[in-house]
């Protein structure tokens, strides 16, 4: 049943598949009718079903948990599954996230980028002793556990990377996602790494001192992580190490 009150949406998508020989980046527009409660996820499926079956985009959870549907929506990075079309103008422009490897159209390979980052930052708990699975885990204050959990909510969607002006210019920059991880492990008492160890990982201009405080990361984070204040916290911590005399000037 058609409802005359619904808007006609014009969705323009940056189409390009680097794996197809001779394919060139181009904008393609599709007109669809808006439905109540429509998200971009639904709109894109509508396009794929009724207009162009070759359109590539990623979705898994449809609930803002998996982070695979991040894309540039009218210039701003966000999760397509969480974006209601009624909050957007009738003309919507979609593009894939920059920085990451393009698979095709709106689909990007955030996974290998994030894996590289995790390896580079050694984003796992570094324990000194072997874990004895027969022993109870060490207790933790609930407040601390909450604080760690707050940062652990990162879904690695890549929005903060796409919203970071620094990383557009300097690809080696770890970005908010990386710094947030360090902040998370730095808080964790089970991780035996010292601040000096973290300084080795992020104590340079590819790390925390490269951040130009453009706030893009925090403003686009779909999980509302306190990214900027965590970066500020790490900056203070890393400065403490940098001011110690046993560091070197080379």
């Amino acid at each position, binding site marked *: 049943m058609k409802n005359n009150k619904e808007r006609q949406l014009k969705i323009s998508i940056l189409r390009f598949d680097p794996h197809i020989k001779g394919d060139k980046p181009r904008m393609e527009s599709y007109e669809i009718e808006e439905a109540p409660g429509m998200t971009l996820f639904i709109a894109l499926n509508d396009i794929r079903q009724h207009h162009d079956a070759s359109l590539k985009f990623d979705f898994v959870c449809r609930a803002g948990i998996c982070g695979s549907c991040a894309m540039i929506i009218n210039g701003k990075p966000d999760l397509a599954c969480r974006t209601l079309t009624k909050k957007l103008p009738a003309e919507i422009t979609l593009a894939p996230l920059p920085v990451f490897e393009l698979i095709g159209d709106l689909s990007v390979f955030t996974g290998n980028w994030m894996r590289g980052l995790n390896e580079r930052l050694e984003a796992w708990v570094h324990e000194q002793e072997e874990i004895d699975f027969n022993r109870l885990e060490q207790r933790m204050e609930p407040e601390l556990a909450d604080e760690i959990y707050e940062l652990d909510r990162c879904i690695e969607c890549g929005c903060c990377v796409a919203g970071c002006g620094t990383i557009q210019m300097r690809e080696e920059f770890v970005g908010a996602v990386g710094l947030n991880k360090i902040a998370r492990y730095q808080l964790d008492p089970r991780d035996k790494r010292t601040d000096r160890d973290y300084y080795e990982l992020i104590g*340079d201009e590819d790390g925390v001192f490269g951040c130009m405080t*453009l706030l893009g990361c925090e403003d686009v984070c779909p999980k509302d992580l306190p990214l*900027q204040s965590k970066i500020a916290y790490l900056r203070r911590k890393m400065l403490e190490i940098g001011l110690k005399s046993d560091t070197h000037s080379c």
Partner: protein
Amino acid sequence: MRQDREHKSVAAYLCGYISHMPARLDLLQSVTGLILALFIAAHLLFEASILISKEAMYAVTKLFEGYYFFGEAYPGIISFLAAAISVIFILHALTAIRKFPSSYRQYRLFMSHMHRFQHGDTTLWFYQAVTGFMMFFLGSVHLYMMMTVPSNIGPYASADRIYSDWLWPLYLLLLISVILHAAIGIYRLTLKWGFFEGKAGGKSKTIKQKHQKMKKIMFATAFVYMSISVMSLGTYMLIGYQHSDNAGERYHTQNESQAKTEPLSPNKVK
């Protein structure tokens, strides 16, 4: 920590220590920026004393020449101050230039990101970079003049310099760039180091509200300073215009005229 880390740089292997320079350069940039911003905040207010009266501006000039401390005016103090500010200015430029795009490619990437993103704080950074770049030149001219001709300050001396010596275009541009740069800089500085944020924890929402509040304060301060400074520049222009036939002649305070003593200005012969 694993010892077989692959990404350790050659330099790190060679010296066996971690470099403290990135941390110290970052601190230096922030500290020099803070000093310069505080200096400018005071400078613009002192300069705006012309809005009160010529007498008030004259008193401020003499204050900084040390007249009220030593009983005699020493413009050399201004030279010394200008030299000190120049050193801080150069250190700030040196450390801040690390953040500039270093190639056309980087510039283009940033610009397309900025245009696409339409994000206030990202765009503000661009303004900061542009105004910073402008001040490499505008600020240098001004500082050099204050270092070499420090006695050329006063209700008539400054007005003549601005109007008859054609420095007003430079000062107008310098004024706009310095206020924008300092205001945005202080705002970014508070966020960068997390001042006023309290403990490391805290929910994103309340912190974001604080950011917004700080941004408002920043814009309001910049607006107030811009208004005061443009008005005082206008006043100097007006005085300079009225005084243009006698350009070069110095201001004499009413007290001096009444007492019929020698004028205070050491450059009266100029």
